[in-house]
């Protein structure tokens, strides 16, 4: 704090000026058909080798790849430069969570609709990036189809079936089944059934078309009986002792993988890597090919071409190529990003993929089936993430910190939602 805030401000200004200077000179073509395209991604998209491949096939194109360490960093950068009207890369990668706000400014993105990408993706993936006036502002890269991960060793110790097909049957097909299975498990085990009420709620709310807002963007979160019912259901499960009361991503949550923190969790494709990293020494994790309440998706990314790009056509062509099924399968092989393309989900390379850590589970096949099970695309208007934050906090007050009753916490949720207006 103190001096650093001013220093940072000065540095940011200095760099900002410097970068603005650079980007304008770096993007000029020299008239001979040679172009330099900038591509901004974050975390791991698995594009390193693909970029080399593209440049080899297109000698007139040079690609500069900028990689942000975290998606939050990329998001701040995106918002600031989108507002400034300059400084963005020719292709900007975005996460699905940013779309509610970006969809409000369709004019700032190139419409990527094209015959070459017709029917390329799963229908719900396309719908996420389609604006109200029918523009397609992003090409889908990866997705996070959800399965249930479980500790086979703990299931076995509790005298329950531990084989992944049997577990899928045991878990059932609805959330009621899932909680009922939890009660059976906990009758014979001291380990909590699930991480927290909040993470289950998160999965449930993503299966509802209009939980918080109707299609016009009007906020209905506090009156919608469905929301209240889900709220009460997960908190009842918490009251029944099924929840470990561990807020996702907290220090306690991360370290709980090292002991027997909980027996099952909602498991989008990218979570497999997280579990493997957090629970490196733990044996027994497995993946069941089922998801309560129908399919579910959590996360996933897109490539966009901002309208401020000086080479929109070349950028579009590159984004088209990168998100084609063949390339996304290669990215999956390089970094495990699970593809969103119909053809990629049928590719033998993907279907043959297994993960040794999860008892050699055929994760490629399981997740491809989970992706096809997704039917609902929840409406997410501009207030969605604010309401969802407030909901997660409301659940946390009852389930994690235990500082409020369910009713008192709901009242605070209502106040918080009103404050967003």
């Amino acid at each position, binding site marked *: *704090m*103190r001096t650093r805030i001013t220093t940072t401000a000065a540095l940011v200004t200095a760099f900002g000026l410097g970068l603005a200077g650079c980007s304008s000179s770096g993007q000029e073509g020299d008239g001979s058909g040679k172009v330099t395209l900038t591509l901004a991604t974050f975390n791991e998209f698995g594009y390193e080798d693909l970029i080399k491949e593209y440049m080899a096939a297109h000698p007139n194109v040079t690609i500069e790849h900028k990689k942000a360490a975290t998606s939050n960093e990329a998001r*701040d950068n995106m918002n600031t430069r989108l507002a400034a009207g300059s400084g963005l890369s020719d292709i900007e990668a975005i996460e699905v969570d940013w779309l509610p706000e970006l969809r409000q400014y369709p004019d700032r993105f190139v419409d990527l609709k094209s015959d070459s990408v017709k029917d390329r993706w799963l229908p719900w993936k396309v719908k996420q990036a389609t604006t109200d006036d029918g523009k397609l502002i992003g090409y889908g890269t990866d997705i996070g189809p959800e399965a249930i991960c479980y500790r086979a060793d703990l299931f076995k110790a509790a005298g329950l079936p531990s084989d992944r097909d049997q577990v899928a049957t045991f878990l059932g097909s609805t959330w009621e089944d899932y909680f009922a299975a939890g009660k059976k498990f906990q009758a014979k085990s001291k380990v909590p059934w699930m991480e927290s009420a909040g993470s289950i709620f998160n999965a449930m709310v993503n299966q509802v078309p209009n939980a918080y807002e109707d299609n016009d963007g009007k906020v209905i979160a506090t009156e919608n009986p469905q929301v209240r019912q889900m709220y009460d259901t997960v908190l009842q499960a918490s009251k029944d002792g099924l929840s470990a009361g561990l807020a996702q*991503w*907290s220090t306690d*949550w991360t370290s709980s993988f090292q002991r027997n923190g909980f027996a099952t969790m909602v498991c989008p494709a990218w979570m497999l890597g997280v579990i493997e990293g957090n629970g490196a020494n733990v044996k027994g994790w497995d993946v069941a090919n089922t998801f309560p309440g129908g399919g579910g998706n959590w996360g996933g990314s897109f490539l966009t071409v901002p309208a401020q790009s000086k080479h929109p056509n070349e950028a579009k062509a590159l984004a088209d190529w990168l998100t084609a099924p063949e390339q996304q399968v290669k990215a999956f092989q390089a970094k495990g990003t699970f593809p969103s393309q119909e053809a990629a989900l049928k590719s033998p390379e993907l279907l043959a993929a297994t993960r040794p850590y999860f008892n050699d589970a055929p994760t490629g096949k399981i997740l491809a089936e989970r992706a096809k099970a997704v039917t609902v695309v929840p409406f997410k208007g501009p207030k969605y993430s604010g309401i969802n934050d407030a909901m997660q*906090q409301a659940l946390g*007050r009852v389930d994690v*910190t235990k*500082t409020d009753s369910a009713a008192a916490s709901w009242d605070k949720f209502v106040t918080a939602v009103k404050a967003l207006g």
Partner: protein
Amino acid sequence: MPTVTTVGAAPAAAPTPTLRQRLSRWDVRISPYLYISPFFILFALVGLFPLLYTFWVSLHQWNLIGGQGKFVGIGNYSYVLEQPQFWVGLRNTFSIFLLSGVAQTLGALALAAVLDQNIRAKTFWRMGVLLPYVVAPVAVGVIFSKMFADQSGLFNALLDKVGIGAIGWHADVLPSHIAIATMVNFRWTGYVTLIFLAAMQAIPREVYEAALMDGAGRVRQFFSVTIPMLRPTIIFVVITATIGGLQIFDEPRVFDQSGLGGSDRQWMTVTMYIYELGWGPQKNFGRAAAVSWVLFLIIILVGLINFMITRRIAASDAPKSPPPEAVATGTGANPDAAAAHRSTNGAATGDAPGPRHPEVTL
């Protein structure tokens, strides 16, 4: 100047200065201002302009991406002042500021007094207190968040062992503030200690000798000589601690995974509220700017109050008016200067190179 070579009729009145003379006069008059102008130009660019522009933004609807909307006057201010979250944020900010600021200043004074004594391996200890300051704030955040974890943390494990029982560091208001203040103090106490130490070393040793002759013990010396002589430095430290403490952001933000200040906003500070309004789901720069301005005014107000209090406290013990040299020596509040003058003890004078602190004029 015996021969005048002017051929024409021009009378060339004697007092009219040549261009050279005029330039030289301007040089004398204007140059000093030019030399100090870079600071003011930079300040106007990165300090004053943002300040005024923030005020302009606070009077409008303003979206992070969409930009300027319609003029709303004091609408943003009245919205913000009606929000319970704003007041919770203010409560947390002051609580954390008091817990960290007071502990830090008192702790640093005590540490500096010890380091000022004739101890072995002086340099080792003096550099040692600065070590935490070198650690990156995020690293401090990561380490402390592991230690303060509710279920798996070191502190709760220890508390459990001694029979006190686990404390909800992330659940209850006061414990969360104590935990955050601990992070802040860990980082800043050493830094403030060195500022105090530098000022203490600039106090003439004769004053202590005189006090000793009058029969003052160590404690009496500390309160009747050291503290009054440190007055300008204490004021400086308290003012900067106020400005920094009321803007506290990093430590509470990394205190949990969501960075929103707890599920019931137990430790959400005003600056975090600004960030949430402007860059969070609302993306509302107008409201964020309004809070920024309210905070700015609060900081000025508290700064003034602190200034008056510290002046009174430090003055009540002081001799009627400290000799001017003593005040001047107090301004050597510069760690580098301290290091350079360490061996010369009382001979250290206040004319050490380095940044001047505002207390010179106080």
